[in-house]
């Protein structure tokens, strides 16, 4: 992978004890290819390489024995920073239920993630809300997931996402649930009507956390999607799904860069326990291949 390629470059640079601008450029060119292959957005890559160039120029590379290593170490550090530096958690409130909304494009894993999150926070007496009145058998899917996780799923009300959410919040406050997880229908960031529906749900739900659920295999468009949801609805965090595959996950950088929100979790299997803490340093390593 990248490390072996750098060993070759190192052996060329090593022995000179100093590194020229040209040699930094060669390393950065290789990093650019690595990031693009990893599905990091091409504009995010451009900006990142520019910033790296400035940072590397500022380093005292001439005085070191292994300038190539220092450059690589800097890349990992900068990537980890962009991805959030260290793992982040959601914070629960002292009073009242924490209200989480899962939003995102079609098929990214929102419904399964809702159940996974609920199971993870089972001790908060969670309530699952099927605010998807559109997809065939959406309610049945969340209901079956809830049964397997032994977590209550409130009913779909008046075949309306907004009405369902309103009833659910009342139910949660009445029953003393400390966590409400609202699953919404997949939607395009360009669908004005569905974005409007989400705004209406937002008004009723008064989310504490609006989480973008994004497919870990997403390509270049992840930037536009993340930015659009942030601008139109507002985001407080993200979950990157299907990371049990072999996609490098460059979409992670697109999300943190474009939407400026932390990634809290990654989806790591189809099973109910397939959700894990997101670690920026590990993601940086995965992206770099």
């Amino acid at each position, binding site marked *: 992978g990248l490390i072996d390629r750098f060993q070759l470059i190192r052996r060329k640079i090593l022995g000179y004890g100093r590194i020229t601008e040209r040699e930094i450029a060669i390393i950065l060119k290789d990093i650019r290819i690595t990031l693009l*292959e990893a599905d990091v957005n091409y504009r995010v890559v451009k900006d990142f390489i520019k910033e790296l160039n400035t940072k590397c120029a500022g380093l005292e590379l001439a005085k070191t024995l292994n300038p190539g290593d220092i450059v690589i170490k800097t890349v990992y550090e900068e990537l980890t920073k962009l991805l959030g530096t260290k793992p982040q958690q959601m914070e629960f409130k002292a009073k009242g239920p924490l209200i989480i909304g899962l939003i995102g494009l079609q098929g990214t894993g929102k419904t399964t993630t809702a159940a996974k999150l609920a199971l993870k926070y089972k001790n908060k007496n969670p309530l699952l809300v099927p605010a998807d009145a559109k997809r065939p058998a959406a309610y049945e899917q969340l209901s079956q997931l809830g049964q397997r996780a032994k977590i209550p799923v409130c009913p779909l009300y008046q075949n309306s996402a907004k009405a369902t959410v309103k009833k659910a919040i009342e139910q949660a406050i009445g029953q003393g649930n400390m966590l409400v997880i609202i699953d919404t229908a997949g939607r395009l960031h360009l669908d004005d009507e569905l974005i409007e529906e989400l705004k209406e749900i937002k008004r009723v739900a008064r989310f504490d956390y609006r989480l973008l659920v994004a*497919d870990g*295999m997403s*390509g*270049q*468009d992840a930037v536009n*999607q993340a930015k659009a949801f942030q601008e139109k609805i507002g985001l407080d965090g993200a979950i990157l799904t299907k990371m*049990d*595959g072999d996609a490098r996950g460059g979409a992670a950088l697109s999300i943190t860069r474009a939407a400026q929100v932390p990634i809290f979790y990654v989806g790591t299997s189809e099973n109910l326990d397939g959700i894990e803490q997101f670690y920026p340093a590990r993601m940086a390593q995965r992206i770099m291949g």
Partner: protein
Amino acid sequence: SQLFSRTKGASTNEIEDILLRADVGIKYTDEILQRIGEDGVDLVEVLKKKLVNLLSIDVPKIDVEKPVIIMVSGVNGSGKTTTVAKLANLYQRCERVILACADTYRDAASEQLEIWARRANVEIVTSQKGQDAAAVVFDTISRAQAKSIDRVLVDTAGRLHTRVDLMAELRKIRKVITKFRPEGPDLNILTIDANLGQNSIQQACIFTEEIGINGLILTKFDGTSKGGAIIPICNELDLPVLYLGIGEGIDDIVEFDPTAFVEALFE
């Protein structure tokens, strides 16, 4: 046209940006830009022609006794079930169609496909208690033969190509189909989500290696993704794109047109 003036005289850097943004990938982008050269020709027009050529692959010819057997597979959430519904709706205009719900894994999979079967006005077979996916397919094709049905559409469970056990299940499903049709499904389709990046290439390679895919359907093309990953896929595997999924409704499917696709990529 506006498109022409925007890209006429475009530099290789500008063209590179267009291809990268379209998920064509840096590897294939570098490869093709090297090949079209820099000799003052309108690079964009040369490139567009090359790409249209690359994507103009003949679709598999189906010349068999009924039932025609169509299998749809792909990674989780790529749009298989919705695509099966769209295809069923297309075919049932002139033929009798039956669906096999070979997704015995996912919550409410049969309920989802049953709703679509009703909307498309086609028959459906779902799994009986304890049945595995291959058994559902066997039952469906047997019934299709008995009732002289023209077409069988098999919806399979989503699976990552990295799951050895799930790819083995898929091979088992294909093996059952070979009991009726020795060469396997007449259309062996892989759904590719247009929103995905370079991983689509690996998906196509592994699925083809495992069960011999002979056609692609690019789904969710109605978003802002360009779906350019099909270009390195076609270059590598010579797989025709049969249809584009352009929405969540039953009619949201169109035949793939390489020229329109390439034009849209450059917009």
